[in-house]
Structures are given as C-alpha cells and as structure tokens.
C-alpha cells in the first residue's frame, strides 16, 4: 500500500492486486502494536487513506499468469482482467506458521492452547468467545519460537518480531486478567529494536511477568482442564512442569503461499529459508534478477511493520528511477 501510494505521488499509475477481499493483510487482524501500544488501525487507516481514489485496487483477485510482451508485463487475474505494467512489485508478505504442525503443543486439540494471532483477535474483540474469567486467578504461558529456529518445523530462521510481540502481549494479558500470572518460555529474547528492551524490563518490573529460559517440549491436558507444559529451566538446570490456564503460541513467519506461485510465474530465486532472495542483501535489497521485478516487505524475510513501510518507500524510489531510465 505504502509503495503504491508513493509511486502514485511520483506520478506513476499503480494497480494494487490483493488476494484477500480487504486491504491490510495481517495488520488488519492485529489489535495494537509494539513498542508503543498504538492501535493497529492508527497505522492502517493513514495507509489506506493515502491510496484512496489514487491507486486502482483489485481485491480478491489471484494472479493466474504473468507474461512478458515487448518489455511489458501482462498479468492476468482470476477475475479475468489483464494488467499491462512496466514493473512489478512483489509484496506478498508472509503467512503465519501453522501451529498445528507443532503437534506436541496440541493446537486445535486443547481449547486452552491458542496462537498470538488468536489472542490479537480476542483483544480486538473480533472473536467473541471469552478466554478466561476476568476476575479469575491462575497462570498463563507464552511459548516463544513456535515454528521458528526449529529444524523439526522446517524453519531454521528467527522470526524476529515474536519476542517483542510476546512481551507486549504478556503485559496486555496482565492488564486484562490481573489475577493471572504470566510466564514467557523463551530460548533467547531478541529485543533488537529501539525501546524493546524497555518493554522487556517494564514487563518484568511493573507487570511481574516471569521469563523462563527453556523451550517447552510438550503440552497436555490435566484432569482439571489445565494445560501442563514440560520444559527445562535452563538457568536453574532443572526439568520442570507447570499447569497453565491458557497457552499462547508465538507462531513465526513463513513465506506466503501466494509467494510460491509468483516464484513459479516469475521464476524468482529464493533463499534456503524459502523467502525471496534479493540481488544483494545490502545494496539491492529490493531487486530481483528479473528486470523490472522488485521486492518489498516480509516476502524477503521476517520484518516489523516499521521496516516494511521503510522498505516500501525505498522500493518506490528504486522503481521510479528504473522506469525513468526505461523511457
């Protein structure tokens, strides 16, 4: 969205093709964002406004084929229309790792095991069913690195933003359910961004969130419908177990399904993490080996919203200079 808005500003005609029936992707499912607890809408709405009536938006349209005819890309959509463009910007983003694949955590089997996305939906009031009694007492567990840094899940890379998301949600949970203690089970806490460490410290000091270094090995249901998780407190060097009233899985990034299709259609390269591979990680982060095909956002690996927006602006310039040189 941001890129298309910028490109329009620069005086190009942009067509935005969106698989879903609405704009905004994952951010639209988010309630509020790290590090400043800003409502997701506050980010999304300006982005939407920026393209309103300026950019031609094609919703719920899959790409069925892309051909190159005399220097132009002809993209045919599932809706039947064709688009002729001089350049293509791939911004397919990411899908969330399917937590069901981590069978040992029992997602989809135990009601009290949910993902961070489910929790955001709950916070934003999108799904009605109540998680816990507001006045109840008990324990909540947040499992980091679900489907990330895990060869067994086929993803060796770090999804980068889950750590801080976990910390953010831990605090929110303490706020929502004061009677519940929150435990974060992590391997490493990667507070890479500005103010992230402050959030981490606030979670500890102000909200009393307990951080346990150790990956949960398995979850199972107890006779009183709690979730018992097993782990090693690697800092105490002891195997431990604890029963929780709610378990949140911080599922990581995986390349979007749509990206795979585009990879075929445009014969693009991907890295061993299956995300798109730019020509150069430093200087040409948005360039592909294909003339006029550009990359932006999480389709080249896990990114925060801020990073994606910055990239969108960067790629807008790249594309415009490319188009200018073409004339």
């Amino acid at each position, binding site marked *: 969205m941001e890129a298309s808005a910028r490109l329009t500003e620069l005086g190009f005609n942009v067509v935005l093709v969106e698989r879903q029936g609405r704009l905004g992707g994952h951010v639209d499912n988010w309630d509020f964002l790290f590090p400043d607890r800003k409502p997701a809408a506050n980010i999304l709405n300006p982005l939407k406004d920026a393209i309103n009536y300026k950019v031609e938006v094609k919703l719920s349209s899959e790409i069925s084929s892309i051909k190159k005819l005399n220097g132009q890309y002809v993209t045919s959509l599932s809706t039947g229309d064709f688009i002729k463009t001089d350049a293509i910007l791939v911004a397919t983003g990411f899908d969330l790792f399917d937590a069901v694949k981590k*069978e040992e955590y029992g997602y*989809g*089997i*135990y009601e009290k095991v949910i993902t961070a996305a489910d929790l955001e939906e709950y916070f934003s009031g999108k799904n009605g069913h109540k998680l816990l009694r507001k006045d109840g007492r008990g324990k909540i567990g947040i499992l980091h690195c679900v489907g990330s840094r895990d060869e067994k899940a086929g993803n060796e890379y770090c999804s980068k933003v889950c750590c801080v998301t976990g910390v953010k949600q831990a605090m929110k949970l303490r706020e929502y359910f004061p009677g519940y203690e929150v435990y974060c089970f992590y391997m490493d806490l990667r507070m890479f961004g500005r103010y992230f460490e402050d959030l981490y410290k606030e979670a500890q000091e102000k909200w009393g969130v307990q951080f346990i270094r150790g990956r949960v090995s398995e979850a199972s*249901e*107890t*006779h009183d419908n709690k979730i018992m998780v097993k782990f090693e407190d690697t800092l105490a060097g002891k195997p431990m177990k604890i029963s929780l009233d709610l378990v949140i899985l911080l599922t990581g990034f995986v390349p979007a399904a749509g990206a795979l299709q585009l990879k075929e259609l445009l014969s693009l390269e991907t890295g061993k993490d299956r995300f798109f591979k730019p020509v150069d990680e430093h200087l040409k982060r948005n360039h592909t080996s294909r003339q006029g095909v550009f990359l932006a956002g999480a389709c080249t690996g896990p990114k925060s919203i801020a990073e994606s927006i910055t990239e969108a602006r960067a790629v807008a310039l790249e594309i415009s200079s490319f188009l200018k040189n073409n004339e």
Partner: protein
Amino acid sequence: MNIEGKRRIWKAYQKEIADDRYYYARSCIRQNFFPGSETAFLRILKEELGKDIHDDPRHTTCTGIAYHCDVIPFETTMTVVARQFSLMSEAGYTNYVPSCITSFGIYTEILETWHHFPEIEAKVREMLWKSTKREFSKPANLAHASDIIYKFRNEIAAKGKYRLINQHTGNPLRVVEHIGCHYSRMFPHKGVGGAEYPYVLAGMIESWGGEVVDYPERRHCCGFGFRQYLVKANRGYSAACSKKKFESMAPFTPDMIITNCPGCPYFLDRWQFVIAEMQGITYGTAGQGIPVFTYEEVAGLVLGYDPWDLGLQTHQVAVEPLLDKLGIPYDPEMKYKAEGGRFIGTPEYPEVLKVC
C-alpha cells in the same frame, strides 16, 4: 479437548497395512511375560478373521535387547534381521508382522537405513551370504501385530460378545492406552496416528466401546529402558518412570491400561506391586491397583475368550474387578489350573497390594 483436532492429525498419519498372508515374528520376552497374548493373536487371526498367518519356529531374536543395551554392533543386528527376512521369503510371505514393538522399531529403522543407504543394504546382503549362504527380499509390508488388530478392530467389535462398558453403570470404561516407545517415536509416519497422538490403541478402544484417557504423562516411557531394568541397581529409575505415569493418570480414575509392547504391560503391572510394597502407595480403587492388559488380551476378552485361557492369572494386578465390570464370567477355581485341571501353583500374596 477437541477430538476433531486429533482426527485431523490421525488422518495425516495413516499407514499401509496388509490385509492377509502374514509372516509372524514372535517376541523374545512376551511369551514368558504374558504367555496368552501371542497365542490369542494367532487364534484371533486364524479362527475369527480367517487370515493366513505363518508362525515360524525358526526365526531368532531381532537382537533388539542386545542392540539397545549397546552390546552388539548394528551390522550384526542388520544381518540377523536379514536372515529373518530371508526366512519370510523362503516361507513365501511378503508381509512381515513382528509381535514386539522393539523389533518393529528395529525393522523399521533398518528398512529406512537401507532405503537411504543402499550400499549398507548391499553390504548386509553380502554379510548374510557369507555367514549363512542365504538371500532375502525386503518385506512388501511391515506392520506391527497391533496394527493388524487395529485394522480389524471393527470386525472384532462386530463379532465381540462384550464391550468395554461398565455393566454396573452403563458408562464406557476409562482406558489408558500406552504405546511402546519404539512404535512410532523414531518414524512417526510408520505408526498409526503418528508419534504425538498414536491412534493404534485408541482406535481399538473407541470401536470396542471404551473411552480413551488423555493424561499428561501419556508419552512417558514405562521405564523398561533395557539397561534400566536389566541392571538391578538401575531398577529404581525404571520403577520411578512407571510411578510418574501412575501419579499422572490417577486423577483420571482409569479402569484399565492397554499396551502394545512386550515390556510396558509387564512393568506397568509389576511396578504397581513394587511401589505398593516399597512405599505403600496403590493406584486404582480399593488398593487393588489398575489392571494392565495387552491389546491381544483385551481383544480376546471382547471376543469372549476365557480369561484364564488368555493367561490373565499371570498378571500381578488382579484382573477380576475389571472382569466384573465388563460382566465377563470366570471361575475362580480354575484361575491356577492348567488344561486338564492340573494345578500350576499360586503366587506369593503381596503385603500391600490387594489381590483376589
């Protein structure tokens, strides 16, 4: 718990199971632990299901115990296994059915190894030839005996006289299913239902009318662990493992435990006696412990076989209370009598654990 979620996973782990002409490989230890089980298995397949199953007296151990005790090299194991295969081929069978979970694990591991490293297979063929002048062809289908019973669980249910239902209350029995570690831990796709939520026993329980108990330590090992048990000084670990499971399942008040491994039923059964005698702790109701069965025994009971023919008198934890629940008649007089009424002697009575 959302059973649909489990069904989704079970669908993902379906395996090919041959439906006839089996080459049966017995277990080294089961015949002494629970003599009735393998006999019952053969009887069920032959008499009830009318299958062709070859019980070959010539086959040897798969060396699994020695292998897991790290006392023989893998090459030896593979060569011995190769010989079993050649016996199977010789007998004209292609569907290999081991009775032992560890054997099943060994066979699976070996076939996988050969699949990924043909040169090893070639080497094994050579070794087998050198040592026995034998050749072999790999089984077309490898299934554990419990897979077979699983496959025909509904037929058995249909023929069955009894269901896993408490006759006094009418409620389904609460059954703990315990899967042998070597069944699908190493190769989830080789086991029915995978490794996390194996369905092989759960399936039987479902179709025989019981209710599966999903308890936290479901995945935990019974504690056999070969060396843990075989070295006397280590048995404390072994017993501790079973105890961990009992502590975890106790709140669910299970009526019985079903297993599909040689060691598990033995240890889950015997350790209840040891724990009771050592620490005065008993599980289940009225200090009688939780009766433990092999899937064959349960299948036999469902089909209405005589409990004593199934060898249930060899159990440490008394089975009578469960038989009563199931409404299965039995003659206490005959408990310790062999065929023709020959008295086989009674075991020493435990001090703490209540037995009939």
